[in-house]
C-alpha cells in the first residue's frame, strides 16, 4: 500500500466523525435556516428567517453586546496573561507554588466559575454583605450592579479569570522555546529593558499571543452558558438569543434559531480565517 493511501486510511475515522457529524449538522442547520423543515410542514426554501433577523433591532444589539464581551474579555485576558507570563518566567522564591495557583482554575468548569462570580459579586453576594457590615451601603440596591448589568462586568470577570491562565500557559511555553539569548544580545547591543521587550520579545511572542487570543475570542463569541447565567435579559448575547428562539414553543420560530446559529458559525469561521492569515503573516516576518 502506498504511503498516500495509508495516510488517507488512517485519517478516515477522524474525518468521518468530523465530516459526518459536524458538517451533517451544519447542512441540516443551513436547510432549516432556509425554511426547509419538512417535519413541521415547512417545505418552501426562502430567506425569510434571515430577513426577519436582519431587520430586527434586537439582533444588532445582541451582536454588539456579544462582540463587546468577546473583545473586552480577550483584550484584558491577553494583557494580564502577558504580564503574568513575563513575571512567572523569572526565578523567585515560591515560584512553583505561584505557578500552580496560576494554573489551578484551568481545571474549574466555566459554570462553576460563573456561580462563584454570582456568589461574590451580586448585590446580595459576599462583597455586598461585607460592604454592608462596614456600613458602606444600607441596602442591596446600593451595591454597584455587576451581575445582569448593561456593561456585562460579571461575564467579563468570569472570562478573564478563566482565560488568563490559558493564554498565560501558551505564552510560558513560547517563552521557554525562545530562551533568553535574543534578549541578551539586544541588551549587549545597548537596548533598554523596554526596547528589548518592545522590539525583540514582543514580536517573538506575538504569533502565540494572537493565536491564543483568537481561540479565546471565538470561544467567548459563541459561548452560551455564561451570558445565560450572568447576563442581562435584553439585549442578550447572540447564542442566548438563538437558544431562546430554538426553545420557543412555536416550531415556526425554528428557522430563525437556525439562521442565527448559522450567522454565529459564519462569524466564528471568518475569525478563524482571519486568525490564520494574521498568524501566517507574523510567522513569515
Amino acid at each position, binding site marked *: 500500500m502506498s504511503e498516500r493511501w495509508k495516510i488517507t486510511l488512517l485519517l478516515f475515522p477522524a474525518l468521518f466523525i468530523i465530516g459526518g457529524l459536524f458538517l451533517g449538522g451544519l447542512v441540516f442547520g443551513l436547510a432549516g435556516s432556509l425554511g426547509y423543515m419538512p417535519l413541521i410542514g415547512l417545505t418552501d426554501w426562502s430567506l425569510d428567517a434571515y430577513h426577519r433577523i436582519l431587520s430586527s433591532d434586537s439582533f444588532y444589539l445582541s451582536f454588539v453586546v456579544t462582540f463587546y464581551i468577546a473583545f473586552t474579555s480577550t483584550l484584558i485576558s491577553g494583557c494580564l496573561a502577558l504580564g503574568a507570563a513575563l513575571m512567572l518566567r523569572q526565578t523567585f522564591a515560591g515560584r512553583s507554588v505561584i505557578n500552580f495557583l496560576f494554573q489551578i482554575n484551568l481545571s474549574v468548569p466555566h459554570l462553576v466559575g460563573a456561580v462563584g462570580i454570582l456568589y461574590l459579586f451580586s448585590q446580595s453576594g459576599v462583597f455586598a454583605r461585607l460592604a454592608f457590615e462596614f456600613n458602606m451601603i444600607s441596602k442591596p440596591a446600593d451595591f454597584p*450592579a455587576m451581575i445582569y448589568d448593561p456593561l456585562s462586568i460579571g461575564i467579563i470577570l468570569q472570562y478573564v479569570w478563566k482565560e488568563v491562565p490559558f493564554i498565560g500557559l501558551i505564552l510560558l511555553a513560547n517563552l521557554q522555546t525562545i530562551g533568553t539569548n535574543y534578549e541578551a544580545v539586544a541588551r549587549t547591543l545597548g537596548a533598554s529593558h523596554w526596547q528589548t521587550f518592545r522590539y525583540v520579545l514582543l514580536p517573538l511572542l506575538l504569533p502565540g499571543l494572537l493565536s491564543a487570543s483568537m481561540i479565546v475570542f471565538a470561544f467567548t463569541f459563541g459561548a452560551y452558558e455564561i451570558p445565560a447565567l450572568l447576563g442581562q435579559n435584553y439585549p442578550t448575547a447572540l447564542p442566548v438569543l438563538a437558544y431562546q428562539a430554538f426553545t420557543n414553543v412555536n416550531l415556526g420560530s425554528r428557522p430563525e434559531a437556525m439562521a442565527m446559529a448559522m450567522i454565529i458559525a459564519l462569524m466564528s469561521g471568518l475569525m478563524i480565517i482571519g486568525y490564520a492569515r494574521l498568524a501566517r503573516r507574523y510567522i513569515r516576518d
Partner: protein
Amino acid sequence: MLNRLLKFTQKLGLYGVLGLSTVLASPVLASAEGPAYKNWDEVVAAAKGETVNWFMWGGADNINRYVSDWVGREVAKRYGITLNRIGINDTAEAVNIVLGEKQAGIDDDGSVDLIWINGGNFRTMKQAGLLYCGYLDLLPNNKLVDWTDISIANDFGLPVDGCEVPWNRAQFAFAYDNARTANPPRSIAELIAWVKDHPGEFTYPAATDFNGSVFIRHVFYYAAGGPKTLLGDFDQAKFDAVAPKAWAILNEMKPYLWRQGKTYPNAIATLAQLFANKEVALYFDYDPAIFGINVENGTFPETTRSYGLEDGTIGNTNYVTIPYNSPNKAAAIVLANFLMSFDAQYEKAKPAVWGAAPAIDLSTLSANDQKTFRALPRNLSVVAPEELAKYTLPELHPDWISAIETGWQENVAK
C-alpha cells in the same frame, strides 16, 4: 396491509368520541398509532422488566426526590419497572430530542419514554406528530379523572385528545414576608400603585421564563378587563386592542422596579434568590407548594405567607405524555397510571414531600380516602387551595401566549 387497516379502524374508534372532524381538520395528525394492547393485564405483563426514561424539569430537589426515591421504589416493587429520572432545565429540551429523532428516522427506538409537560410544549409535540395517544381507556385510574372539567380536558385551550395523562394542578399565587411587608397588594390594580410606593422592591422574570410569562398574562387580563374576550383562538384585532394598554401599564411600572426595570431576572430561580436575599419584597410562583418547600429548606423566612389575587389568578393542569417513538410504552403507561393513583397523589400532596394539588377528582374516591386526603396538614406559608380556587382564571391558547411574550420583548423589555 391488514395490520394497517386494523390500526386505522382502531384510530377511528378512538377519535370518534372526540370528534373526527377536529382531528382531520388539524394540519398534522397527533399520532398515527393506536394502542397495541387489548386490556390492562397485557400492558402490565409487557411492562415488567422495562426501564422508563422520564424527562422532567429538575429544578426542585423535593420533586426530584419524590420521583426518584418514592415513585421509583414503588413501581419497582409493584410492577418490576425501573424508573430513570432525567432532569432537564426546560421541557423544550426533551421535545427537541424527540423532534431530532423523528428527523433522523428513529421511529421506534427513541430515548424518551415519558415527559412532564403542558401548554406550548404539548402543542409543539402535537403539531409535529410526536405523541403516542389513545391508551387512556386502558388505565384503571382514568376513572378518577374528571374529564368533563374543561380545565383538564384542555391543556392551555388545546384539547388533550387522549394524548396526555393529568398529573398535577397548579394555580399562580403571590408570596411575601409577613415580618417585612404589612400590606401586600391584593390585586393587579393595587400592585401597580404599590410598586410606585415601594421603588426597587418588585420585579418579575422576563417573558422567556414560564413564571414571568404568566405574570405578564395577569396584567394582560387586567388590561382586557378579564380573560373572557381573550379565550379561544388567537385574534389579531382583539390582541391589538388590548396589548397597548398592557404595555403602557408595564412600562409605567418599569422605573419603579428592581434596577429601575433596566433588566429583568432571566429565570424564576433568580427571583427566588432576590426574595430570599431581601432584595425584593414579593415573590410569585405558578406552584404555591414551592413557598412551603423554600421555607422548609431554610431559603425563605418562616414568616413567608402567600395569597391569590382578588381579581383571580391563572390556574393550569400539568400532565405526563409518551412520545410516539418510546421503546418502553407499556412501562410508561403503567407508570402514568400509577402516578394518578390515590397512593401516588396522596404522597405527593404531603407538604413535607411536595404539597402539589391532586389532578384527580377527590369525590370519586372512597369516603375513607377522601377523609385521609382532607386531613393533610398544610404548610403555613402555602395559601389554602380552596382559597385560591375561589377565583381561578383560565389559561390562554398557546398562540395568544406566544404573541404576548413576543409583544413584551418588543414593547417593554427594550
